[in-house]
């Protein structure tokens, strides 16, 4: 029965054609969206290699006489260029130092607290868990004045923890470590079977030994995700660093980049572009390399800072 099989074939090929057509259209849309998504990045890459360095003179995506001049200026290697208070290397180091230390300390606080919440039963446990969530409703940002005064007063007594110190800023960041992440971590810990703990207890291990030797190694994957998100969040923080640090040598990278916008921003465009790229690239690479793990964390409620 040729007629039936013919119609069937033509139906199939038209379906196939439809499918191809739909994919082609979606690919075109994808290209438009990709242009929207990466154009600002390409433009800033171009600006960073454009030696004319002003916003007004950058007219094409491929600079006519590309050079590394902006990067040399950024690291003060260009004797003919002077831009006020530029200490870019220091800002990078400050940012890495502050984010690194706060991330490690806050991971320790989070993990230990989550372990207690998951494995021990004590009075007020549920109240505390709920309280931790409730307190997060009051964003740090709203208490800026109070935090400023608090750090100022602390500095009057212990100058190394006061305004314009990294230790003071790290302490403020740690104040936020008893938060949402405890819930995430506790959720993960709840999925680890208790048999592991009990086998340890039978052998006479203390809570600390069980935590350190048996549980902690199993937490590696979630520790990596929370750690990276928290590092990126601290690295990208602007406002707390802005009000607590007031010496150019103490600035973090974000505060440093922000001062480019004061005054004649369009004249500093090229150097800013170079600095912005150096500041953004490591984070972009981390994200793109670990996108699957990070997406997993996102759907569970982790928030980028």
């Amino acid at each position, binding site marked *: 029965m040729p007629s039936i099989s013919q119609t069937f074939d033509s139906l199939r090929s038209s379906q196939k054609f439809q499918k191809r057509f739909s994919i082609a259209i979606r690919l075109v849309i994808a290209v438009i969206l990709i242009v929207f998504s990466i154009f600002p990045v390409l433009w800033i890459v171009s600006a960073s290699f454009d030696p004319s360095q002003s916003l007004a003179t950058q007219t094409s995506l491929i600079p006519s006489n590309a050079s590394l001049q902006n990067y040399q200026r950024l690291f003060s290697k260009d004797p003919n260029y002077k831009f006020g208070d530029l200490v870019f290397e220091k800002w990078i180091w400050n940012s890495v130092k502050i984010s690194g230390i706060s991330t490690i300390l806050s991971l320790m606080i989070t993990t230990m607290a989550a372990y207690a919440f998951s494995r021990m039963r*004590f009075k007020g446990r549920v109240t505390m868990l709920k309280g931790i969530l409730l307190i997060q409703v*009051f964003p740090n940002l709203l208490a800026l004045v109070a935090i400023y005064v608090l750090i100022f007063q602390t500095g*009057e007594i212990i100058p190394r923890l006061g305004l314009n110190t990294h230790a003071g800023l790290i302490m403020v960041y740690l104040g936020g470590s008893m938060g949402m992440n405890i819930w995430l971590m506790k959720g993960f810990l709840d999925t680890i079977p208790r048999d592991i703990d009990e086998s340890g207890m039978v052998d006479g291990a203390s809570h600390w030994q069980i935590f350190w030797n048996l549980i902690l190694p199993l937490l590696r994957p979630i520790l990596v995700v929370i750690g990276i998100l928290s590092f990126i969040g601290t690295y990208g923080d602007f406002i707390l660093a802005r009000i607590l640090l007031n010496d150019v040598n103490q600035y973090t990278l974000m505060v440093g980049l922000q001062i480019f916008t004061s005054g004649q921003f369009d004249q500093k465009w090229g150097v800013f572009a170079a600095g912005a790229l150096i500041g953004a690239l490591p984070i972009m690479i981390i994200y793109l390399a670990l996108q699957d793990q990070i997406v997993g964390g996102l759907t569970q409620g982790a928030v980028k800072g």
Partner: protein
Amino acid sequence: MSQAMPGKPKKRSGMTEESFLSKLTRIILLVAFDAGAVWFIQNALSKGFDQLVVVIGIIAVMFNVIFLLPQAYPLRWMAFGLGFLILFTIYPMVFTVYVAFTNYGDGHLLTKEQAIPLIEKQVFLPEGGKAYTWTAFRNEAGEYALWLINPDGETFLAKPGEEILPAKPGDPGIGEADSKGIPVSLEGYQRLNTLLAASDKDLPNIKFGLEGDQVIQIRNPSEAAELQIRFKYDPATDTVVDQSNGEIYYNVEGTFTSRTGKTISPGFRTVVGLKNFRDFLTSPALRGPLAQIVTWNFIFPTVSVLSTFALGLAIAIMFNDPEFPFKRIIRSLLIIPYTIPGLISIIIWRGLLNSEFGIINKILNDLIGTAPRWTTEPFWAQVAILLVNLWLGYPYMMLVSSGALQSIPSDIYEAAMIDGATSWQRFRRITLPLLLIAVGPLLIASYVYNFNNFNLIYLFIAGGPPIPGAATQAGYTDILISYVYKLAFESGGRGVQYGLASSISIVVFFIVGAITLFQYRFTNMWEEASENA
């Protein structure tokens, strides 16, 4: 400890087995901590940081309870977290609430105890009373000295910042007396003749003598007089009396004010009740900009969440096809906006959207011959902010939507297809409701995040363009939180207003709190907490 572990004998694990050594370290560390806390509290007390004393005291007591009582063993696992939480989250909250009911701000930065001595230090030059005749001397550095003779004929030498001492012509460093008994010279100084001294502009403003001891100022060409304390505080009536004219100043909301409306600076911190909240709602100077700010503060997150979600979801649906080519690379390229630290992206966009030199406006001018002025026209500034936020926010929505889409079982769609549902019906009746269950809480979280999205608003054009005639710095793209920041840290010569800023913070807190509590109900987080208890 392990009471809730079913089927296990109740065993105080970790506690009874604690070795002597570990107990000893615990006690030693606790004693060291206590010593540090006591030292800190003593210092804080001596500097008058009363609130800090209280909060550190609370934390110290908490630590001692936690590390001494065996029942508190689980809390030892979170002692440091709790300490930081109390110090840097809870205490600032309480402090903010307190400040919201005070007049804390420029002109009222000091406590009353600090302000009164400053007020009582102020002096005035009495019109009458004990006077000296004076002769001025000047050295090459332009510093002055005065030779003073009081009505009893006693003579003194006065220099600024030095104690006024009796002196006689012929003393070491002092020249011989002339016919009037005034030394002709001082070592290092040149005597000024009467005419020169009378026309000297600096001389009448110089305070001779040691502050707090005895200060003399020139009253007129022939007389100098001792400055007298101007204000006297009376604790019984809480008033200040002006010694120069007897006028009484009453304590009005932290400023000593006379019946005629004159005030004494500095003012001091005091509780003013609901004044800040009243100002917030009723002050005509504030109301205009505030109505604008509040309206925009609701429009901005609403439009942002809807636009980013719409675009993110559209992309997720479009590429939710396992056979789609280049799927992974497309996704990687599309999430790029999300991977750049927000501050950097915002500043880049600020350059791209520059009205004069930005590339966007260059392209628009070439294509359609005109371009909006993104930074100076209120409407276009708001559009620009929404556009930038769309760019910043759609990748997140795309990621969470595509995650949620994959969790919708495909047999529901098959059943719907058999029933003849169109693709719009399938989206409207199946995809969207199921998706909203999964991403609904995230949408609310995103709303809350954008409600307080300080970085975008502030870094883009600092809330501008400015609203003309506003009593405080306020712009057309300002939201409450950026307005709070400006009030507290960027007064622009109008004086910082911590009290008002804090009261607005509290209003924001109630709005955000209500939305968040709604979100928690949505996600059943409370129930989850109770179930695992």
